[in-house]
């Protein structure tokens, strides 16, 4: 019998944000359709390194396993990707796994994306429909707006677009492409447009759209194929118009 094919995985491990980092290498049995999350599960079942040392299971986030929840983003061979859709057969080995670098580390491959959720709150990335009384039906959304908005609604807040952006770093609190694209989405909705001015003002605040330098990495890294550069350009146009009008017309 031929020996089973092996998959070599090299993981960066760190017990906590202030603990020293180390690398551990694992040798796993290959299976068809194997992805990176399956590798991490196999390690959890049998946490023994390639050279036979017993270790602990690796901490990582995942949930949907179908690129829909956004939790499993990590650096796979140095690139920001979703672990659940990264197929082992398409990856160079040893497969190097590291946590995203632009978010605070929790442990091993798990990071804290709170920054993105706070930014979404800052720009009011929702449509207010609740009142103390029945507000009645909202305006209809034209098919054209629906067609433009639908792809934007696919964002899974994975953070890949922030991870690959040279303007998101420790000197710069840039909110990133995903947030700006959500501003576009909620501003184009007829009910959401009622808060358009507030969203644009937030997006012109500290860490806002001005920090974008048009490297256009975000659109290449987005697992959902969201037209992020188009969103940024659209919001940029609305923003400077509002700033200029506000200046002249009060």
């Amino acid at each position, binding site marked *: 019998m031929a020996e089973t094919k092996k998959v070599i995985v090299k993981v960066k491990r760190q017990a906590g944000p202030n603990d020293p980092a180390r690398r551990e290498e694992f040798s796993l049995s290959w299976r068809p359709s194997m992805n990176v999350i399956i590798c991490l599960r196999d390690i959890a079942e049998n946490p023994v390194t390639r050279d036979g040392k017993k270790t602990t299971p690796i901490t990582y986030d995942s949930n949907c396993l179908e690129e829909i929840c956004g939790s499993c983003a990590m650096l796979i061979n*140095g*690139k920001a990707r979703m672990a659940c859709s990264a197929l082992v057969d398409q990856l160079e080995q040893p497969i190097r796994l590291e946590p995203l670098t632009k978010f605070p580390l929790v442990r091993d491959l798990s990071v804290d994306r709170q920054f993105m959720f706070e930014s979404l709150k800052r720009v009011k990335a929702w449509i207010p429909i609740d009142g103390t009384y029945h507000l009645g039906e909202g305006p209809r959304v034209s098919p054209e707006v629906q067609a433009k908005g639908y792809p934007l609604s696919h964002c899974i807040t994975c953070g890949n677009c922030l991870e*690959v952006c*040279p*303007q998101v*770093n*420790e*000197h*710069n609190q840039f909110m990133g492409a995903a947030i700006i694209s959500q501003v576009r989405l909620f501003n184009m909705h007829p009910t959401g447009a009622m*808060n358009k*001015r*507030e969203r644009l*003002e*937030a997006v*012109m*605040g*500290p860490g*806002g*759209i*001005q*920090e*974008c*330098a*048009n*490297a*256009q*990495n975000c659109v*290449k*890294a987005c697992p959902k194929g969201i*037209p992020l*550069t*188009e969103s*940024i*350009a*659209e*919001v*940029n*146009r*609305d*923003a*400077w118009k509002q*700033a200029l009008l*506000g200046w002249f017309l009060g």
Partner: protein
Amino acid sequence: MSDTASQPDASYLLRKLHSFTGVLPVGAFLAEHFWSNSAALVDPRKYDEVSRDLQTIPFRLVVEWAFIFLPILFHGLYGIYIWLRGKSNVSAYPWVGNWQYVAQRYTGLIAFAYIGWHLYTERWLTHGKSTYATVAQDMANPWYLAFFVVGILASSFHLGVGIWNFLCKWGLATTAKAQEAAGRLGVVIGVAFSFVGILIVLSFRLNWHPFAFYYINK
């Protein structure tokens, strides 16, 4: 609507001003500068006539400071500040836009150093009265010549990428298709400026005046 809404951040306005000054007046001045210097392609006398006209405009110092020196100084210094607040990652993500991002910073810095030296040699040392002869003399020095070529190429590239950036960043080109078209416009501008700039250098260096037959004696 809501009273809590804030005004645009100062960093927003400064960033927009940086972007705007890149095109107007700095980019426009680069175009004017290449245009008036291409008088060398006609005739040294034509060059000296054009120079004299420019050197004798009313309010010269005010115009120079308001539309040339201060905008370049602001755009350059704020550009370096922007640079320091970014963190390039082109080795991990070697995509075209990412390379342009890096190149935009280095060509800006080269242009800044070049412009400083250029002002010193062609404006300060000549007391603002350069002529065809003084420029030709500088170009005779191979080091000067090399710096001229590097400066012209860096500025032209920076302007070409800058026009593309500007069109995207002000929402004048929004869709992927429009931004590709804006990119092609940037390439045309960068190549055209490089080409004309190098022609002017050759004109001084080789005493070569391809449009000599245009010249009309005063």
